[in-house]
């Protein structure tokens, strides 16, 4: 996607997406806005995320959409980087908003949890993996427990029309109102 703009058109919004402890369903739902992508694409420059190649989270990002809860030390570092380098941070979907399914493990201490799954739960592994995987946090938490979040978009996943409503509002320079009659029936919380 090119960042060049013809004279007179407003500069493209530098958009990043991030995938933490989630199932990628929110990213799928973003792609599910289908033909509306054609209208959105010329207004954005996709600078980071699982849908593009960039390896490093860049500076001066306008909007970052984050999917997933904060569950391990890598997530923690990523969400802090995103906060430091983005003007607007959006929690996209229930895992980012409430911690959702990842929080179901919060009732058990991490050690017991891992041993139950990797030792007691298998007859081949017998070991809790430690190499190449970041250590888990004590609890899986919503993004706003770690950094300031400017907008929460609930839903598991947020319905495509809700994502489009959000993107359009942000590209037009205002915050979406989810009690608006044209989306309220498509918004789901929890």
């Amino acid at each position, binding site marked *: 996607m090119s960042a060049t703009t013809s004279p007179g058109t407003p500069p493209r919004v530098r958009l990043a997406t991030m995938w933490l402890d989630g199932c990628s369903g929110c990213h799928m739902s973003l792609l599910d806005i289908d033909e509306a992508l054609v209208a959105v694409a010329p207004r954005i420059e996709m600078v980071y995320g699982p849908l593009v190649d960039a390896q490093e989270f860049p500076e001066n990002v306008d909007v970052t959409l984050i999917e997933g809860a904060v569950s391990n030390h890598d997530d923690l570092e990523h969400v802090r980087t995103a906060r430091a380098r983005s003007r607007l941070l959006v*929690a996209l979907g*229930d895992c980012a*908003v*409430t*911690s*959702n*399914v990842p*929080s*179901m493990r*919060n*009732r058990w201490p991490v050690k017991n949890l891992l041993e139950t799954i990797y030792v007691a739960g298998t007859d081949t592994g017998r070991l809790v993996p430690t190499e190449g995987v970041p250590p888990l946090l004590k*609890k899986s*938490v*919503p993004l*706003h*427990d770690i950094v300031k*979040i400017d907008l*929460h*978009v*609930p839903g*598991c996943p947020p319905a495509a029309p809700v994502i489009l409503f959000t993107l359009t509002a942000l590209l037009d320079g205002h915050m979406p*109102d*989810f*009690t608006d009659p044209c989306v*309220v029936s498509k*918004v*789901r*919380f*929890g």
Partner: protein
Amino acid sequence: MSQKISVRIDGQLCTAEAGQTIYQVAQAAGRHIPALCHMEGLSSAGSCRLCLVQVEGLGRLLPACTTPARDGMAVTTQSETLAHNRRMALELLFSERNHICAVCVSNGHCELQALACELGVTSVRFPYNYPRLPVDASHPRFVLDHNRCVLCTRCVRVCDEIEGAHVWDIAGRGIASMLVCELDRPWGEAESCTGCGKCVQVCPTGALVEKGRAVEEMTKRRGPVLHLAERKEARP
């Protein structure tokens, strides 16, 4: 003949009967007040604090479902203060237990979830409590999942007032309160339960559900309970 009173609801003058609650008067006047624990046909508990209203001259907010309307009362049902307090009440309910809607049989048919959308709750500002709570699946046809219970006591009231069995009660206090079957025994061993399922049908969330339902499959039928309540009311 009952005594008539005059009440102002959001500036609109309404005539009501003495003994009616603010909620009933507002409803008759076509004013919508959000509510969770309240259910038509059952007595009022005032436990969820979502129907809070402002009464002129009073410094504190009152639950509309348990406060009797008085002659000359001026009530506000919609304001910034009320919206703020109602949202906070709802967020506290979400933070108290483990409502993980994505994996709930009542997802999409839940009154708690619907209220969050109606009141514009998009996140919970309070830290989640993540309590470790049991699930009672000992009954052959129904399940009680404490993780999704909001302690509204609809089940307690419907069982006592409509079915006449009084299987359910609330034990403990404050945040440690729990719904209990008889004197705290597994539902499947209850001697007084008739297995009618009224508690399941009136439960606003996925706390009381039918067995064998998958995610999003549990829809509740309130019609029969409302019908029985009307019949009871009409009895001489």
